[in-house]
């Protein structure tokens, strides 16, 4: 290679980098699609919070429902709790996944703040969370009647999130369609 051409190498490398950066502008790094979208809820067998029974995949599926990952150590969970209660009062079925938490603290929380959940899966070791690819609490999954995950929301569920993102998909799931 002639010596002059070698001097163009930095320019070429920069051009490649710039193309990636240009592409990067169109991508949203905060969007975290779950690897499990349109895949069945993972198999599990875990205790129910405050009840003498074991929950598994079959016992929590059958109708479209929300699966909410929460913990007492999670401040944002406290923020979204009243809204979940409101949804539950309006008849939206919500299952809780009590993620890496202590049973006593979780029971006390539900006792004080109210219990919007049909049942709570105790995921003390975070194994179900690992299978789901939980990024951090709170997270909420929409699961259809066949037990297939249809949507994942990372962060707090509030009125805006519910109305614009979750409810349209939930309504479709209720009608048996897929989003």
């Amino acid at each position, binding site marked *: 290679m002639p010596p002059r051409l070698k001097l163009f190498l930095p*320019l070429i490398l920069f051009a490649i980098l*710039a193309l990636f950066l240009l592409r990067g502008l169109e991508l949203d*790094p905060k969007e975290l699609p779950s690897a499990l979208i349109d895949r069945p809820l993972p198999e599990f067998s875990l205790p129910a919070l405050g009840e003498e029974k074991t929950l598994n995949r079959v016992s929590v599926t059958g109708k479209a429902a929300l699966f909410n990952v929460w913990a007492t150590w999670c401040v944002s969970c406290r923020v979204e709790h009243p809204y979940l209660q409101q949804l539950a009062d309006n008849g939206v079925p919500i299952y809780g996944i009590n993620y890496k938490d202590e049973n006593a603290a979780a029971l006390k929380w539900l006792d004080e703040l109210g219990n919007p959940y049909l049942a709570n899966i105790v995921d003390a070791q975070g194994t179900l969370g690992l299978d789901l690819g939980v990024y951090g609490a709170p997270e909420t999954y929409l699961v259809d009647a066949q037990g297939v995950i249809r949507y994942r929301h990372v962060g707090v569920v509030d009125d805006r999130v519910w109305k614009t993102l979750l409810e349209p998909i939930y309504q479709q799931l209720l009608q048996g369609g897929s989003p």
Partner: protein
Amino acid sequence: MIPEIGHFALIMALALALILAIVPAWGAWCRNVAAMSLAPGLAMGLLFFVSISFVCLAYAFLQDDFSVKVVASNSNSLLPPVYKFSALWGNHEGSLLLWALILCAWTAAVALFSSQLPLLVLSRVLSVMGGVAVGFLSFSLLTSNPFERLLPSIPSDGSDLNPLLQDPGLIIHPPLLYMGYVGFSVAFAFAIAALLGGRLDAAWARWSRPWTNVAWAFLSLGIMLGSWWAYYELGWGGWWFWDPVENASFMPWLAGTALIHSLAVTEKRGVFKSWTVLLAIFAFSLSLLGTFMVRSGVLTSVHAFATDPARGMFILLFLAVVVGGSLTLYALRAPTVSSRVGFSWVSRESLLLLNNVVFLVATLTVLFGTLFPLIMDALAQGKYSVGPPYFNAVFVPLMALLAPFMGLGPVSRFKRDTLPRWTSELLVPAVAAIACGLTLPLLHGEYNLWVALAVTLAGWLLLGLLKDLWFRIGGGRDIPTGLRRITPSYWGMFLAHLGFAACVIGVVATTQYSLERDLKMSPGEREELAGYEYRFIELAAVRGPNFVADEARFEVWSGSELVARLAPQKRRYLATGSMMTEAAIDPGLFRDLYVAMGEPIGEEGAWAIRLHYKPMVRWMWLGAIFMGIGGILTSFDKRYRTQRSTSRSSATGAAHATQA
């Protein structure tokens, strides 16, 4: 009215920057002395107008002018005045104005302190800096105008500064960091001017060196403050996270470290010229790339600014013009003939070349790790996040590789040295360093191989430096005279290398020996950590100017001696309702004691409490301060100032212009 004056001044500044970018460069092209002579005056005018703009925005913040959008969204009437002022740069628009102000200050400083420069070079340098200013000022005016008003519905109060930023460290961290980032634009401008003129010589390196060293010093101090802030403010005792924004500041530092060493070789020996120019372009390009990453939203980070694709596109275009343009110029103009000045493999040149390779590889690995998530996403390979394990695995061995050669550096000679001389000079330091490594970690009680290695390397650096200093002051015959002979630039190197040694020890010791316990504690309880007894005395409710807090009052006892009273807080800021952890720290040269509050547990006043014992964590920041002082000290060297009388004659331009 005041914000409109600020806005107008910013527009005036842009006009002046445009003239500065075009007229003196044109003058240099066609040897028009009158056009070239305009450059220093234009640089001063530029600084004047940007300063007016900055003062107007500061005034809007201090006067709680909530009709200005950035004030309304980043300040609050309850905020203490000093934070009202620093809130100016706690947001994208204001920090961009600060950036522009610092850039113009550097430009004016070059105009002011460069009377020994040939006019031809000075006008090119200032023109390049004017061009960079055009980019940033138009970025500010076109996409992020800080003076945008919220009219007619003016909010009654502002929505407050992010509580994380309400902190003394954050008042000076961004200005220092920007001083460093932007300072590399001077080295960049000198490099471009040299390429334009086709004269890459020792004089060029001598002119850029003091500026580059000072910029590097500011960047060192800025990064250090950021790390220190993260340590005490985020509440879990971490001091470096390899977060994209931290990497954005660290990469220019790494490239800058290579640059200051490479400039030394170019000045002293006239070799590595093309390479040094490339590094100068590289260091400033990384500063711009950092700006792009922080402000465009291409990467997730805990402290990225609110982002906007239009801004991202603007910076990317700007980046393409500046970096693409300068690399094209480099490819066309850099000398291809290798220097006739040779050097043997056993020489200081080789050691500095090795320094350059290590720092360049380190920069590229950090760059690769930072951009990897973006690259994989762009190639539709899925979402990735690259965390500390990658960075530690590549970075730590590189630095460990560097240290043995770094100890040789000061003792070595340019051009040709001999291995037997190195051996005879450094055998004693080497043996002593190994002895230190074997014994000193025992003082801590628990022997740790990593600490032993770090102590050996740091000891090697220190003893090599001392040996060299001893040699330079004449081996102790006449110490006062000998010390007076030592130049500021040597002291600067000495301090900076010493600082690096302190960093090595601090980082390794605190990583290896730190202890922490997460506990549930109630008032009256006692817990033990690393030989200290932490007594939770009482819980209190306190009120600050714009927050209320729960305060846990602790006493730390060592045996029967009270070591410290610590009062960590859990604050709730009134304007936003956000919760903040305020850790309490008892600092010490050999250990920090650190208490932070988690969440309340139950009704009886019990809290989740985190206790830390952090040995030698201060050494890391102390080391960075040494590096900063060292970098600044080098610029006081007499040889950067004595050229004045001889080059005055050529400053009229004619004599020099014909040569160039």
